[in-house]
């Protein structure tokens, strides 16, 4: 794991964070639930909490789908290529490329579209950035920078957990998994049918 330059974090007095979706995107509840699950994965291992709010402009974390140049100097490039980006604490901006074929539900590995991208996988990664993690060289880690189409990878790896707990401490309910677990267990290539 790694951190952004200067190791920015959400301040100690501000660890209960709110998130909201750009109203113009008119996301369905199914899509919003994907992000909720992604936030919960990080909340489960840290002292942070995440609550959805309707007030986009007052939310700590702002989720928005854009295409092409959207004004932050990091234009999106159409299908595949760059999928999303997120800013370090305490910016809270989380942008996804609206040109991608995002899959919010169902088994992405069986998608009939060769460019299908699993939304939750990307959401878990970008939330890591919002919280202060940089990229990791550990291929099993969520914070590894690349993800292939039709792939699902949503489980935090020990590398991700060690990194985020170094920044915020551990959730009191979190227990370290047994060391015998295979690194491959972090890669999930099956349906996201509510087993998490």
């Amino acid at each position, binding site marked *: *794991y*790694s951190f*952004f*330059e200067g190791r920015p974090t959400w301040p100690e007095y501000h660890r209960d964070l709110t998130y909201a979706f750009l109203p113009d995107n008119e*996301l*369905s509840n*199914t*899509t919003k639930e994907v992000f909720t699950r992604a936030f919960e994965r990080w909340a489960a291992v840290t002292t942070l909490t995440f609550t959805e709010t309707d007030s986009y402009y007052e939310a700590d974390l702002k989720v928005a*789908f854009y295409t092409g140049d959207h004004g932050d100097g*990091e234009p*999106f*490039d*159409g*299908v*595949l*290529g*760059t*999928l*999303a*980006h*997120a800013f370090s604490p305490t910016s809270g901006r989380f942008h996804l490329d*609206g*040109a*991608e*074929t*995002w*899959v*919010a*539900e*169902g*088994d*992405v590995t*069986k*998608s*009939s*579209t*060769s*460019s*299908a*991208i699993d*939304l939750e996988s*990307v959401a878990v*990664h*970008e939330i890591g*950035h919002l919280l202060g993690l940089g*990229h*990791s*060289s*550990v*291929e*099993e880690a969520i914070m590894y*920078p*690349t*993800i*292939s189409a039709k792939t699902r990878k949503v489980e935090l790896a*020990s*590398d991700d957990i*060690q990194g985020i707990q170094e920044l915020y401490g551990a959730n009191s309910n979190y227990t370290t998994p047994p*060391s015998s677990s295979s*690194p491959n267990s972090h890669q999930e290539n099956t349906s996201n049918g509510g087993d998490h």
Partner: protein
Amino acid sequence: RIHPNISPTPPWQVPNDTAKGAWDSFKNFTGCRPGQKSDGLSKLKDYFKNFGYIPDSQHNFTDDFDDELESAIKTYQKNFNLNVTGELDDKTIENLMKSRCGNADIVNGTSTMNSGKPASSNSSLNFHAVRH
């Protein structure tokens, strides 16, 4: 473009599936080595600049496989645990073509990734060779 449950999506609702990925053209550079020139190589330099492997101060890239590109490739290969050859071998090209997060891997010349460390060295399971 958000598909709830993509499997049963009717073909007419699936976007143009023949669309090329943004970096598919990099495949043409497979086997390209230092000292060579290849049409469009400047786009690969743009890629490396975008993700921090070439300094922001560099502009107007040529299609020459120069020292700067070789250095960028070597750092990239370290970050992604590839063989550090400085050449655009199959594995490196394959990795470059993958979709990815837009955040840079290197900020202000400092790699935010654990350059070149094999995955096992980051694991808490790596306890052998303890010296007393």
